């Protein structure tokens, strides 16, 4: 066990459960924690009860998944039992929240902050109803406004979760940092995509379009984390397609401080946290590196044709 300090809290290791994966009750969060996860995240909590979309909502494509669950939520003020169950937990919890407007975000954030989560994560990959349903996370002004407003009403560290749909995700991250975010989480699902069933002659998802996750989006996620690392100085939770210890190493090298997993639970079960943690520590040990040695390593200058640096790096 690592005993990492992240925004002032102790985590047993740098692995994070992505929001919307399993995190529907306290018991399952505890089990995921026991299965080797350093920080578990609740399914995003919204301002009012919402059923989400009709099925099919989540489909495995083999190399990744597509989903349009539609932000189902009991509503922030209908979760007393869960908050109670979480009250005497012995593991840290990240509470993901969303709203359709800055005011809604603030309302939910304020309430949730009082329930004692360790962190609040704002899911700004959701539609902004004040602004023609454009995602908060693709617009610098909206991203600033929501982050800034939420920061003022909560008493726990704030994590801004970004969407790869942003034209310049580094800029959005910077804006969130400026607005008071204590960390960035990236990425939410990519795309959106669509899968048409040619026999049924119709999109498979009831909502037609859905977000992509899992191995197929890893290159996009790594690029986003790389861009964000150059733009901000706050820590980054890197996620998107991570399934193995080597994927986690890649995310750290791109600039992540913690690494999240969601779809990997489909491919390797809940035990994926234990497994990836072991694979990661084995890799680090074999290479005589600590995690700190590799965070952001892909940004180090490397001997180029015009450089006088060492011509090639020894494999340690």
């Amino acid at each position, binding site marked *: 066990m690592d005993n990492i300090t992240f925004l002032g809290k102790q985590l047993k290791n740098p692995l994070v459960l992505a929001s919307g994966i*399993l995190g529907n009750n306290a018991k399952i969060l505890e*089990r995921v924690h026991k299965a080797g996860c350093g920080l578990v995240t609740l399914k995003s909590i919204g301002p009012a009860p919402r059923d989400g979309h009709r*099925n*099919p909502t989540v489909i*495995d494509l083999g190399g990744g998944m597509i989903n349009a669950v539609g932000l189902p939520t*009991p509503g922030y003020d209908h979760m007393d039992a869960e908050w109670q169950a979480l009250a005497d937990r012995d593991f840290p919890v990240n509470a993901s929240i969303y709203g359709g407007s800055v005011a809604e975000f603030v309302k939910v954030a304020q309430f949730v902050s009082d329930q004692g989560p360790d962190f609040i994560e704002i899911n700004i990959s959701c539609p902004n109803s004040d602004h023609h349903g454009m995602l908060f996370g693709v617009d610098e002004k909206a991203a600033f406004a929501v982050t800034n407003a939420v920061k003022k009403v909560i008493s726990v560290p704030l994590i801004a979760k970004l969407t790869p749909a942003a034209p310049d995700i580094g800029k959005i991250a910077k804006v969130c940092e400026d607005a008071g975010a204590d960390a960035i989480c990236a990425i939410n699902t990519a795309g959106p995509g669509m899968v048409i*069933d040619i026999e*049924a002659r*119709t999109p498979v998802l009831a909502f037609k379009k859905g977000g992509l996750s899992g191995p197929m989006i890893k290159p996009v996620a790594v690029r986003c984390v790389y861009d964000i690392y150059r733009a901000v100085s706050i820590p980054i939770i890197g996620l998107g397609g991570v399934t193995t210890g080597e994927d986690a190493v890649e995310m750290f090298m791109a600039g992540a401080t913690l690494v999240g997993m969601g779809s990997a639970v489909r491919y390797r079960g809940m035990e994926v946290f234990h497994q990836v943690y072991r694979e990661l520590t084995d890799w680090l040990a074999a290479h005589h590196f600590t995690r700190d040695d590799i965070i952001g390593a892909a940004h180090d200058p490397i001997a180029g044709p015009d450089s006088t640096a060492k011509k090639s790096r020894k494999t340690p």
Partner: protein
Amino acid sequence: MIVDQKPVMLTVAEKTVHTAVYTTLFFDFAIDFRPGQFVMVWLPGIDEKPYSLSYHSPTRFGITIEAKGLFSRRAADLSPGDSVGIRGPFGNGFDIISSPHTAVVAGGCGMAPLAPLVERLHPDLFFVHGARTHEFILFPDRFAANRHITTDDGSLGHQGMVTDLLAAEIRRRADQGAPPFDRVYACGPEVMMHAVFTLCDVHGIPCQVSLERYMRCGFGVCGACVCSDQVVCKDGPVFDSKQLKKMPDFNRTALLKSGHAVPLSEYVAWRCL
């Protein structure tokens, strides 16, 4: 071969209308299978819901639908030649033992997942099936094994509950010094399964029951179906006594589509689309 990724559109090969409410649809396709596993059934434009396999052979499988809500009525209305999307199989399935001392307790449409199990258990099993009236008795001629029927109205077999017969048989075996049950399997309304579980527990008999919860992914990712710390679609739907004891949500709490945790009675009354 159908797999657990995106749905495969299959044509209904044959349809059996058992009663006004029970219908079986057959598909001529190969699918991996252990009794107790289920598939996600997609009616394009309507919805997608989980159904247990009630028939299985290397080249054909069937699902048995109780027409009660919008989706199940549409599904039961399909005709041979119509097509539906199938993905699966999902879930763990029952643990099949070779002992001659097993019991199977079915309530209503809970017969569906149990039927292929009964066909693989030792024929000496003790087999009870309860239903509202005789018209709700599924698969009347299907089994070699002897089946004890209970109905709420006494229109067939014993009038009363399946647990009456199970309790009596447990007592009889004890009284006559016959070997006790090595395993009891049950599927039906959760309140019935809970009664079976409690009864077995009192007598130290391990049991396995198959739970139902609202489902989205079917493969243990979305969390829609969690029951305490168990993921019904993946860890279940079949759970054994040991697990059930550590699941306070069993017979008590379930999540609605919104994720709202409600008492089971409220969940059961909820119409979902």
